[in-house]
């Protein structure tokens, strides 16, 4: 246990049990969880074959709880740096509402439970993928990469990219090129998304000693990398079309969305000083969330149109 974990435990001078149900819900990182549920749902929809609606619901629930468990374990381990950053200092553990040990127990229980439920009730390929995702996010990203290298979110981004693969595996029981193409979209999207945030939260990350790219390589290099990763993301976006996972409706939508993403990446690259630079980064960050939602929404929309026509 780190000094900060002991500090938090002693500052609260409590025996534990102070957290409300809402605090425990906050440990699950509900906003991240909502994106995980959505992308996993798209994985289920995109996969060839069918899954009983109740089993699909169980799969989504288990994936959501597994993602929440990862969030709780992340908040347990990162309590020291969360306490130093404006964005995270009001989280339940640094605030003292939940003791580090409680967050650890809560997260570990949910992690094991979600994997067992997905494995037993749906299939073990999906269960194993969920277990690997939790391991990757907690051990590889949170405990190792995040504090060690500026490439933390490039590699660590894989954890956030697995949910559509898990959804797909829940239907087929396999890992296919189609599901890997959905994985790659989120994997390539993550760096520009997080680096846009890191650019306007640079001082926050610097205060916590987290080696994000803007602090290590500088804002100009980060802007260049955002543009490079955006350019690499664009062809990846069309992989599901070439693999026959999606059709022309998705392709047309992806073309428009890709142009929009590139526009904002260029805006971040060009605006480097003052308020305009900050605004460009904030817009890029906001648009990137909407972009991922829309690109994945195209898949069920296309399926729905296919069913209706």
């Amino acid at each position, binding site marked *: 246990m780190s000094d900060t974990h002991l500090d938090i435990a002693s500052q609260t001078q409590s*025996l534990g*049990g102070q*957290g409300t*149900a809402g605090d*425990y819900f906050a440990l699950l990182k509900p906003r991240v969880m909502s994106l995980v549920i959505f992308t996993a749902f798209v994985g289920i929809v995109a996969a060839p074959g069918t899954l*009983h609606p*109740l*089993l699909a619901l*169980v799969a989504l629930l288990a994936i959501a709880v597994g993602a929440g468990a990862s969030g709780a374990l992340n908040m347990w381990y990162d309590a020291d740096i969360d306490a130093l950053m404006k964005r995270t200092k009001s989280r339940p553990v640094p605030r003292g509402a939940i003791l580090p040990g409680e967050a650890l127990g809560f997260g570990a229980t949910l992690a094991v439970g979600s994997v067992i439920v997905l494995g037993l009730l749906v299939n073990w390929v999906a269960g194993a993928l969920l277990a690997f995702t939790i391991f990757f996010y907690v051990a590889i990203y949170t405990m190792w990469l995040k504090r060690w290298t500026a490439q933390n979110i490039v590699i660590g981004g894989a954890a956030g990219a697995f949910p559509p693969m898990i959804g797909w595996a829940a239907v087929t029981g396999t890992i296919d090129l189609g599901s890997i193409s959905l994985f790659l979209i989120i994997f390539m999207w993550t760096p520009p998304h997080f680096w846009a945030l890191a650019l306007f939260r640079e001082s926050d990350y610097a205060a916590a000693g987290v080696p994000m790219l803007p602090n290590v390589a500088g804002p100009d290099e980060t802007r260049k990398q955002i543009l490079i990763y955006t350019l690499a993301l664009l062809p990846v976006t069309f992989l599901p079309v070439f693999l026959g996972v999606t059709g022309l409706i998705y392709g047309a939508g992806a073309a428009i969305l890709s142009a929009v993403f590139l526009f904002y990446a260029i805006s971040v690259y060009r605006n480097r000083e003052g308020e305009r630079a900050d605004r460009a980064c904030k817009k890029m960050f906001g648009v990137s969330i909407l972009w991922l939602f829309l690109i994945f929404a195209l898949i069920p929309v296309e399926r729905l149109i296919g069913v209706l026509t």
Partner: protein
Amino acid sequence: MNNTPFSPEDLARRKKRSLVMALILGGLVVLFFATTIVRLSSNAALMAGG
């Protein structure tokens, strides 16, 4: 004299947490039962077909 180390607020929070936990567990029991029925009936259909 109150011997418990927990304040009335702590106990109220605990009660609410327990209630939420009970609801979640109850929901899971229903969900697992329904899932078992679905899996059993699909297995039965497969056996009848084979």
